[in-house]
């Protein structure tokens, strides 16, 4: 039993599937891993538009948005999320993404402001460690 007086600040992460595909195996596995690592994951489900994702992140006071997509529309949808964050003056919210994204697109997306992209085969531990570096205040 921890003898901590005040609760640690929970890092809140919105995980969303953008685009039309329904492949949620990856996002669910990541959600579980982040939960087990002590994060509060707000899963918004399938087929979220960029505006819906950003709206959820704002309402939930999330510090990060994780996007999962497998449909191939990453060069359309991820920039649209970044644009929506700019429009809502919320560019301090970290955006990361996972999915089948070719190397050259990864470079381009990072230039646009995506913090990190995890491709298939990325170990869960790597995602957790990356987040821990970004949010050292999380307890687990």
């Amino acid at each position, binding site marked *: 039993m921890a*003898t*901590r*007086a*005040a*609760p*640690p*600040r*929970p890092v*809140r992460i919105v995980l969303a599937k953008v685009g039309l595909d329904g492949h949620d195996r990856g996002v669910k596995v990541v*959600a*579980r891993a*982040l*939960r*087990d*690592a*002590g*994060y*509060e*994951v*707000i*899963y*918004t*489900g399938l087929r979220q538009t960029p*505006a*819906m994702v950003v*709206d*959820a992140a*704002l*309402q*939930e*006071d999330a510090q990060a948005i994780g996007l999962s997509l497998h449909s191939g529309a990453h060069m359309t949808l991820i920039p649209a999320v970044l644009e929506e964050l700019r429009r*809502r003056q*919320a560019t*301090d919210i970290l955006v990361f993404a996972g999915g089948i994204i070719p190397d050259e697109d990864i470079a381009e997306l990072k230039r646009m402001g995506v913090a990190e992209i995890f491709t298939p085969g990325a170990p869960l531990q790597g995602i957790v460690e990356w987040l821990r570096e970004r949010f050292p205040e999380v*307890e*687990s």
Partner: protein
Amino acid sequence: MPERDLAAEFRAGNVRGLARAITLVERRDPAVRRLLAELGQPRPPVVGFTGAPGTGKSTLVDALIRHWRALGRKVAVIAVDPNSPYSGGAILGDRIRMQGHALDPGVYIRSMGARGHLGGLSLATREAVRLLGAFGFDEVVLETVGVGQSELEVAAVADTTVVVMAPGLGDGVQMIKAGILEIADVLVVNKADLAGAQRAAQELRTMLNLAPRTEWKPPIVMTVALSGEGMDELEQALARHRHYLEGSGEGRRRMQARLREEAADLVGQWAREAALRLLEADGELGRLADESPYVAAEQILSRLGTGGERAEARA
């Protein structure tokens, strides 16, 4: 993170300010007190929804939001997930069933995990309700799956508590958790189009008739949240209960009881935190606790009582 002028953000209707303020509540940051003092604290009516998993609570809330929005009312939902594993992390997914209102600025949905609340969930939600009121919401829904003690915490905060049931999967009405009828102001049998709904309602009626007589008899409302069937009846039942609370003085009594309860809860929480600090700081006290927690507790209480330690949230 730069300090934000939350009061200004509230006045400007910036939803991020509200969201951040609720986070501060969850972190028990005293800045919230200052904010509420500045903004005033109108308290919107709170309807609590509780029920077993799979009864369609969220879908029902979704339908109710639609109903209220059609009347031009601004609605906020706090979806509480009491399932918090050991790690302290959580997966909160209740928003999904309320996506009919995505992008409607008149609807705000906030997911809340049980992390760190340690039974103080109602403290956090009470304060969040005040913030929602200060932000301008007309209706607040507090939704939680009925596991553990969570429905009691909802009932402790809500003006009207709705208990949702659904027929099927063999969980007959007799499976209702003990005590749940006592907290219900309105009973809903959702998925009323399924076989067994009428029987479930009948069984509920029988159980209510056996219960001690009270001034307010909880109505049983049949709904099909997916199609919107029964939503008018639900809204009417909520309005009647609200009317009853106002007319009978019960509302005032409940409000008073709640505020006193909240004060007691706060004392409990602050004293606990102060005690933990003391035990950590004072080695002798710690050793005393190792031998007899009772003796140590008395000492701590007396030290807190004499003002030797300020028992309050991190100021």
